[in-house]
């Protein structure tokens, strides 16, 4: 600010300019030595005047020199000092810098006019005053006697100490780094050395820590290290190096040891369902390239490994489904809690599908049996909601299975038993299960099953109609099964039914055929059951009539009825009189004479039935209950039934393969072997081996459905 009014026209003499400068010089000297000066406002005036009337260039030079001289002096005395440690050195340096900063700032304020009117226009050649001060500091202080080198070494050393756990003066570091930035020395002199040191430090640490700690602890260490670096950057180092520092830490602690980490600790964490630890692992791995990719590989292998343990061991068959459900549940929660990303969900699905199908057929069979167990009456384990939930979870397992036809065969067989023996817990559950299967596999899959339910309903109606019409007193229930809907049963028309019952059955038959004249009915006695009132005459003096009501299978009933007209019968005699197939008969006799409830006595005693055995009524028979069930034999599955069911499915598969081959060959007329095989794989819905296909192809060649080309044994031709 120029004051013009008070003293008249402006002063411009050389002497006066000299005077102005002298005063200013003194002022500068004050500032530079003490950091402040008394008469700021008059100094300002002088500065402005000198600027306006004097040589600006010269003034600038003079200021520059003052600062320079002063700096040199500072530097000299600084370098003479002895410092006990690095912190002290840095402290002194910081002190000098701060003072200098303040001084430069003040000087700049005073010569503000010069700055604005001259320096800025000369910006190509001249530094602004602040920058001038900074540069002077750099050249006269830092670049002298390796002050900068010492400074950086000290800072790095302190950081290293802090990393190792010591407490250091963080704000001091902050000041120094800020100084370096302002001196334009941060990037050029400090940063690279800092990054290298960081890299080296964490490289060593990784090896040491991995070696000495378990994975969960290591993960904790990594997390803490990252946090610490972030904190240090935030509080004192400034954020310009942040990305590189963090990347260095990540690379050294995680990126270079991904496989090592996973190999060492993944399985254990999974086994223990360590949600938090797995989540940490997942988070940390996601920070490095390919981290998640490798983790997914390990996840896949883990699921497959544990899954195979459940599925491949025949001794564990009894609990397979239960174990699988539990396993799936655990994996689901782990993935949800700790690996919430799409890739992991995909991996889970693939792994499950892979291991479940490694054991052909058994899982499908066991799942069907499991559902049967749940749908049977007497299953008091769960309430409605729990049961629905469990069945839904079973369906998820079912979805992974590739040979669904095995499941269908067993499910159908068990459903038939449930429906016919009245063993369903609730028709609603049955229907709900059916709906689930329909949603999963389509209506073709459930069409026959639905037919079975229809038969049951229709039979009920027919029965009430019959009872009305017939008015007989025999308590009869008939279910008419449509062939094709139900599993195949071996016909047993040779069985001799007691005449009384046979008459009743005949009457029903007449009634039915009157309604459906074109149809053919044949009785399936193996599926039938009845209640017999039996009275066992005791041989004791008491002569109390032991009366019991026995729930028995039709076969059992047929055998028992024989003893109404004979006291003792030999095994061959029973064969002849009943017409029951031998293996079945043996089982029947065993259930009557060798089990827990012995209504017949066998001579000689023993578990097996031989031709020399003879049977009679067990007159000493006692049981606490009046109504006794002996027909569980019908509901249990024999090993033959089991193998028969699977055999039928395999037979059926053969037919399907044949049909598919013929279909494809008929359409294309000529095909090479590999093309045919690949087309078949597309069409067939169950798992097949290449040998299975070859067998059928050979069979079809033998039966002249197709032939090989004369000159190319690899190509087939359809024979019309």
């Amino acid at each position, binding site marked *: 600010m120029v004051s013009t009014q008070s003293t008249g026209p402006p002063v411009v003499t050389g002497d006066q300019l000299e005077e102005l400068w002298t005063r200013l010089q003194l002022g500068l000297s004050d500032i530079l030595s003490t950091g402040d000066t008394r008469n700021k406002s008059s100094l300002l005036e002088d500065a402005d005047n000198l600027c306006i009337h004097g040589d600006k260039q010269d003034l600038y030079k003079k200021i520059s020199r003052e600062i320079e001289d002063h700096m040199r002096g500072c530097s000299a005395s600084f370098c003479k000092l002895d410092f006990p440690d690095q912190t002290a050195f840095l402290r002194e340096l910081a002190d000098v810098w701060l003072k200098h900063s303040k001084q430069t700032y003040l000087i700049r304020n005073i010569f503000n006019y010069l700055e604005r009117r001259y320096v800025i226009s000369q910006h190509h050649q001249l530094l602004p005053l602040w920058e001038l001060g900074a540069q002077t500091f750099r050249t006269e202080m830092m670049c002298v006697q390796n002050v900068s080198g010492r400074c950086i070494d000290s800072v790095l050393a302190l950081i290293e100490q802090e990393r190792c756990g010591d407490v250091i003066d963080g704000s001091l570091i902050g000041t120094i780094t800020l100084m370096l930035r302002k001196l334009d020395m941060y990037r050029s002199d400090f940063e690279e050395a800092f990054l290298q040191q960081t890299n080296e430090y964490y490289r060593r640490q990784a090896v040491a820590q991995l070696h000495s700690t378990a994975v969960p602890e290591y993960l904790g260490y990594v997390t803490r290290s990252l946090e610490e670096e972030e904190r240090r950057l935030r509080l004192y180092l400034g954020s310009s190096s942040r990305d590189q520092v963090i990347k260095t830490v990540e690379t050294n602690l995680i990126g270079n040891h991904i496989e090592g980490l996973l190999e060492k600790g993944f399985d254990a964490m999974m086994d223990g369902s360590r949600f938090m630890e797995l989540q940490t692992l997942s988070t940390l791995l996601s920070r490095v390239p390919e981290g998640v990719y490798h983790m997914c590989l390990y996840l896949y292998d883990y699921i497959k490994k544990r899954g195979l343990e459940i599925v491949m061991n025949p001794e564990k068959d009894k609990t397979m489904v239960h174990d699988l459900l539990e396993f799936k549940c655990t994996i689901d929660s782990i993935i949800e809690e700790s690996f919430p990303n799409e890739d992991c969900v995909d991996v889970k699905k693939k792994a499950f599908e892979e291991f479940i199908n490694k054991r052909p057929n058994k899982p499908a069979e066991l799942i069907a049996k499991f559902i049967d167990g749940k749908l049977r009456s007497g299953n008091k384990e769960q309430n409605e909601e729990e049961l629905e939930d469990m069945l839904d979870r079973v369906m998820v397992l079912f979805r992974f299975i590739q040979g669904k036809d095995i499941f269908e065969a067993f499910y159908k067989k068990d459903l038939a038993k449930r429906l016919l023996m009245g063993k369903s817990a609730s028709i609603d559950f049955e229907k709900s299960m059916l709906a689930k299967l329909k949603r999963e596999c389509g209506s073709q899959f459930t069409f026959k099953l639905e037919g079975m339910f229809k038969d049951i309903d229709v039979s009920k109606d027919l029965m009430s109609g019959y009872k009305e019409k017939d008015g007989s007193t025999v308590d009869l229930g008939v279910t008419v099964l449509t062939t094709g809907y139900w599993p195949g049963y071996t016909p047993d028309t040779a069985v001799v039914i007691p005449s009384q019952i046979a008459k009743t059955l005949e009457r029903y038959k007449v009634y039915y055929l009157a309604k459906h004249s074109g149809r053919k009915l044949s009785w399936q006695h193996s599926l039938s059951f009845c209640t017999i009132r039996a009275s066992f005459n005791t041989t004791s003096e008491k002569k109390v009539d032991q009366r019991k009501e026995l729930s028995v299978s039709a076969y059992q009933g047929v055998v028992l009825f024989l003893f109404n007209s004979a006291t003792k019968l030999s095994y061959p005699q029973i064969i002849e009189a009943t017409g029951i197939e031998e293996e079945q008969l043996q089982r029947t006799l065993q259930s009557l004479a060798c089990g827990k409830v012995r209504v017949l006595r066998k001579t000689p005693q023993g578990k097996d039935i031989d031709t020399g055995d003879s049977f009679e009524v067990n007159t000493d028979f006692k049981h606490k209950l009046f109504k006794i069930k002996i027909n569980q034999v019908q509901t249990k599955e024999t090993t033959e039934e089991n193998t028969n069911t699977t055999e039928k499915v395999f037979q059926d598969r053969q037919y399907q393969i044949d049909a598919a081959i013929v279909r494809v060959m008929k359409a294309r007329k000529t095909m090479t072997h*590999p093309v045919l095989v690949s087309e078949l794989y597309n069409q067939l819905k169950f798992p097949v081996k*290449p040998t299975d296909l*070859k067998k059928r192809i*050979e069979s079809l060649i*033998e039966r002249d459905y197709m032939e090989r080309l004369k000159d190319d044994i*690899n190509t087939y031709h359809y024979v019309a």
Partner: protein
Amino acid sequence: MRMNFQSKKMSGSASKDRMIAKFMQLTATGEKTASFCLSIHGWKLDEACDYYFSNPEKYARDHKQQIMVDRKKIQHLFDRYRDPSADVVSVSSSHDGLLRFFQDIQLDVYSINALIFSWRLGVVVQGQITREEFTNGLMALGCDSVDKLKSRVSQLDNDIRHPTKFKDFYQYTFTFAKDTGAKNLGIEDALRTWKIVLAGRFSHLEDWCTFIAQHDRRSITRDTWNLLLDFASTINSDLSNYDEEGAWPILIDEFVGWLRPRINTSTSSAMS
């Protein structure tokens, strides 16, 4: 086992003569036929033979193979050996015409020549030759006397020299060896026949027979029979070019699986 024909571009007539001679030997034809066929097919011996065999009538240029064959003589010959009760020459225990016939023409019953002879005659039922088969067969062979037959019999191996001819012959032996009504060939008969017809043509013949003998298959299908020849002629001795994923019959797949470890152990023991 393939026979390598050398088809060089020939210019001189001497080499043409050589080719004609070779052709005649291979196809049992006359000179006129040979040179006609060769000239049509650019003097490529290989090709010419192939074409000839597929259509012999097309190329026949020699009148009745230079040799006159008397049909009546053939009929008389048949009558000499025929069964008293049927119009066949057979091995019936009483008469045994077939055996005497073979003895007279010096044909070893158990040799491959006997099979080739049956093939040339188109014999359908083992153990007997019908009048028709006898007559047409001998006409085709150009023989109407025992002496002519004797000399012809000694050259029978020529007839199967060319791979196409051999294949036809080999496939015939399946039909010949099996029971007339049956679809497939029993193991015993199969082994016996293989040992005769594949001798010297299948490096693993012995292994194959061992394998089959201990396998639980009781019969061989036509397809498997036929493909064994392809196996023998195209697959390397060390099985290196065998493709399990290919269209080979399962029995051959199983053979390879059985054979591989045996080959490896024998080569490794040979090396040590």
